[in-house]
């Protein structure tokens, strides 16, 4: 299988651990990944104002790049990129006038966009095309005895129209976790917002959210948390510093991307995991379980 890949800005620096572990895992699964040429920022958030067409230009331009690569499918890893690209695509697919206006901005592009690219998240690809049972067959190091809380955040599941799982109780990450041999832990905060971009100038909100989300997971017995969004990862991992300052009884818990768990189970080398980018070191618990 071959798939076109849109990384987005953060996957190339702060979330390099997400990208490297995903690419290594996909290689182990015999998927050929081709990074989109000349991709640009997706805008990170989908414009909610009805008349704000200009902010849909950036995501749609990326979909033109997909067409230029002679394909009509693109995979994302970042939940925010996924949401923005997919929602912008849905907007132009269902509203001809918007599509026409946006195409007018693209007068220097060779391809006239027609709403015919399919935006996919890696999790969808794993579930629907590679299929979890085939992932299971490639597991060389089962994540035995590891208790994982799976945190979805907002952008993979909402709004319902673009989500690929149940809006209130998604289970795709739990299912993947089980396939990798770990024990998924259910907890009530798995789709609760982490505070998102409030992290820039209102760290206290994020520290509060991280405290409630993570202590809830810990109360249910979680040893690590699995995430799928670089902003959630930053807020839940790096903001544990502020969380601890505000709540001295708080106990740190490692935050990993679901692709890092997959990379370990599929036998990727440790340099694909990039644990140097984490605030809370995941190595002690993984060593204790004999996984690294």
């Amino acid at each position, binding site marked *: 299988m071959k798939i076109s890949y849109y990384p*987005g*800005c*953060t996957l190339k*620096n*702060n*979330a390099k651990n997400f990208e490297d572990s995903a690419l290594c895992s996909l290689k182990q699964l015999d998927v050929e990944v081709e990074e989109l040429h000349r991709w640009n*920022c997706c*805008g*990170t*958030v989908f414009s*909610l*104002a*009805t*008349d*704000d067409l200009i*902010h849909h230009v950036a995501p749609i331009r990326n979909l033109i790049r997909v067409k230029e690569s002679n394909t009509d499918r693109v995979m994302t890893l*970042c939940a*925010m990129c996924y949401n923005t690209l997919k929602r912008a695509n849905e907007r132009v697919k269902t509203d001809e006038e918007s599509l026409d206006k946006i195409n007018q901005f693209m007068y220097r592009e060779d391809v006239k966009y027609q709403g015919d690219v399919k935006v996919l998240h890696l999790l969808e690809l794993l579930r629907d095309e590679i299929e979890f049972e085939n992932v299971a067959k490639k597991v060389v190091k089962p994540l035995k005895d590891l208790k994982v809380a799976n945190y979805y955040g*907002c952008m993979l599941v*909402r*709004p*319902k129209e673009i989500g690929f799982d149940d*809006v*209130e109780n998604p289970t795709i990450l739990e299912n993947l976790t089980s396939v990798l041999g770990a024990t998924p832990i259910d907890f009530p905060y798995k*789709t*609760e*917002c982490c*505070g*998102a*971009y*409030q*992290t*820039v*100038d209102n760290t206290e*909100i994020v520290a*509060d*959210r991280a405290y409630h989300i993570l202590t809830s997971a810990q109360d249910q017995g979680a040893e690590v948390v699995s995430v799928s969004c*670089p*902003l959630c990862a*930053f807020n839940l991992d*790096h903001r544990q510093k502020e969380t601890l300052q505000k709540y001295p009884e708080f106990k740190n818990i490692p935050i990993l991307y679901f692709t890092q768990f997959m990379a370990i189970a599929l036998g990727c080398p440790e340099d694909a995991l990039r644990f140097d980018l984490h605030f809370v070191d995941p190595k002690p618990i993984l060593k204790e379980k004999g996984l690294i």
Partner: protein
Amino acid sequence: MRINLSRRKIRDPFVAKVQELSGQNLLACYQCGKCSAGCPAVSQMDILPNQIIRYAQLGFKDELLKSKSIWICASCMTCNARCPKGINIAEVIEALRQILLRKREDHLKIEKLSDAERSDVPPIAMVSSMRKFTS
């Protein structure tokens, strides 16, 4: 708190503007409160999401545009997913932010952030914050 209702406020172009920018029919709301019940940000809000809709119906422009709530909402879309009347509350709140941002009244003051604050956060945080909180 004393609240004055008036025909003048209700007919203020502000109400139509909010409906136009959000694409929502404000009068569809019957105040069940489900949006506020599920909102993860209510503890920091001064006007709750269901109250925002009521205030917008009644043309309470000043109260809404001065509220903390419109900058606390992070568009997590939980309210939208749960509204039994299909109102997109997050879009209404976006419309209120847009009314201020389109007058160059930025919420995020980048120049007041220290170098460390700016460089510690990943690009995804900085770009999204600027997209939501600056003009």
